[in-house]
């Protein structure tokens, strides 16, 4: 829903900026106060109200002016496109879908992006907005640095039985057809994007990307992101990314799969940011077990174990484990092994929680150099698992 999209973006931005929710009327609007309690921002909630767009735009403008506002609210997005993303009305296409067959389309879209430094002014195909959004919110900021070389392909998979509403269809294909199929949408996207991608491929230096003005409606980028987020959030779509390692030359491409299962955590967060009402999906974390203080346990039945995902790129997740999973985790801890944990992630007090995930102890021992430093004073809770 439009309201939830706006609230999701603005409320998260305000939380990030240490503003606090100070009041409002349930279902109608929220009132946020700055840390000093001097300024307030009203975030509208009900998009059926006639002044919703005015208030949402007003709130967005206010948030943008706050020093330190998140990049996705202040970056070089065109005003109309960002507003389109936030304010546009539309149903959640994923909400009523039965289990899917998969339609697959590979889009050489990242060739259009070329370098992260060029993202700002690539017009046609995917432009600055989608580049930044994908980089920062889907893939996670940790892996994306300005100046990275970007090329490769993105594969989009959507359920073949998906149907798109008239507004979605119009934005993607230019035709306001109610109930447009995923296949038709994919065909339209492919036709539009491949033409622009061909132009990019024909340019050896990629310096002229900012001159590419394809036939693609730039709103497609935003719409596609939204569509992807919905399907990913519902666990019904799959997106894979490949990129060229930074600094590699054309013809010597070393592709690496960027969107692996662990990245799903970020996809999940990104989806929640834009479509908080959609269902959650399982994510998989691989990491090291670290014992924590019993104070972290939320009930007598929870055993809490911290996991640090290797490479230091991810935050810790707090796990509420069954007795068997707890014993497995202790075993992994004592033997220096990694564990693979699968479950649904939720937030509580800014921390990631997985309740009753499955835990699998991996055979391979953790290389000593890869083990993050543990927090001092950490210890097991009161139960002896042995």
């Amino acid at each position: 829903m439009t309201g939830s999209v706006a609230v999701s973006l603005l409320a998260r931005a305000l939380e990030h900026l240490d503003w606090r929710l100070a009041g409002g009327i349930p279902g109608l609007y929220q009132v946020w106060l700055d840390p000093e309690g001097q300024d307030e921002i009203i975030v509208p909630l009900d998009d059926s109200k006639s002044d919703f767009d005015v208030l949402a735009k007003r709130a967005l403008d206010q948030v943008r002016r706050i020093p330190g506002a998140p990049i996705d609210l202040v970056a070089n997005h065109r005003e109309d496109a960002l507003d389109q993303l936030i304010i546009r009305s539309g149903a959640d296409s994923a909400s009523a879908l039965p289990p899917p067959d998969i339609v697959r389309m590979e889009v050489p879209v990242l060739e259009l992006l070329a370098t992260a430094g060029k993202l700002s002014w690539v017009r046609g195909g995917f432009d600055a907005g989608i580049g930044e959004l994908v980089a920062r919110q889907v893939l996670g900021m940790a892996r994306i640095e300005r100046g990275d070389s970007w090329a490769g392909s993105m594969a989009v998979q959507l359920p073949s039985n998906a149907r798109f509403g008239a507004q979605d269809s119009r934005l993607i294909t230019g035709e306001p057809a109610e109930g447009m199929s995923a296949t038709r949408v994919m065909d339209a996207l492919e036709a539009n994007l491949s033409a622009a991608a061909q132009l990019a491929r024909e340019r050896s230096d990629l310096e002229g990307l900012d001159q590419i003005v394809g036939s693609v409606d730039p709103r497609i980028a935003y719409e596609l992101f939204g569509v992807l987020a919905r399907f990913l959030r519902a666990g019904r779509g799959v997106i894979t990314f490949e990129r060229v390692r930074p600094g590699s030359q054309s013809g010597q491409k070393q592709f690496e799969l960027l969107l692996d299962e662990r990245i799903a955590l970020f996809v999940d967060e990104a989806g929640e940011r834009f479509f908080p009402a959609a269902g959650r999906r399982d994510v998989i974390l691989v990491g090291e077990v670290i014992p924590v203080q019993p104070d972290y346990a939320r009930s007598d039945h929870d055993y809490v174990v911290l996991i640090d995902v290797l490479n230091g790129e991810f935050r810790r997740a707090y796990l509420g484990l069954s007795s068997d999973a707890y014993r497995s985790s202790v075993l992994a801890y004592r033997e220096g092994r990694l564990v693979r944990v699968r479950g649904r992630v939720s937030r509580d007090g800014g921390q990631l929680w997985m309740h009753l995930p499955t835990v699998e102890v991996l055979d391979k021992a953790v290389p000593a150099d890869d083990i993050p430093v543990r927090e001092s004073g950490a210890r097991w809770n009161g139960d002896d698992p042995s």
Partner: protein
Amino acid sequence: MMLTHRSSSHQYGEARLELQLKATHQLANLHDDHVTVRMSRDRYDLFRSADVTIHRIVVAQWQPENPADWLQARPAGNLLRGPLHWVSLAGRPASDSEQVTISVPRANVFDDLALCEIMERIGQGGAP
């Protein structure tokens, strides 16, 4: 201008009201029973919206041409003299004019009592 009134008597503890303040010193705008002011069509469209998140009213003041007759600057602050009047435009018809003329009834005196009554109505889920 946004006014907020917090009270346990309100359904949700607070009532909000957005004001558009207008003033005119032209005699032609002062009538026996109303004052006329003008608004841009964009503002008019916003203020004439009926099903809204935040209720809105227009507050108008007719001011004599000589500022000394309605404004006094004092060390403790400025004193604005003269009656204010208010009107809700909710439900008004659309207008084709770039500048829309608004009639504000002089019977609708905007003072502390009127403001309390307006906030009370909004706080109970009603309109100004």
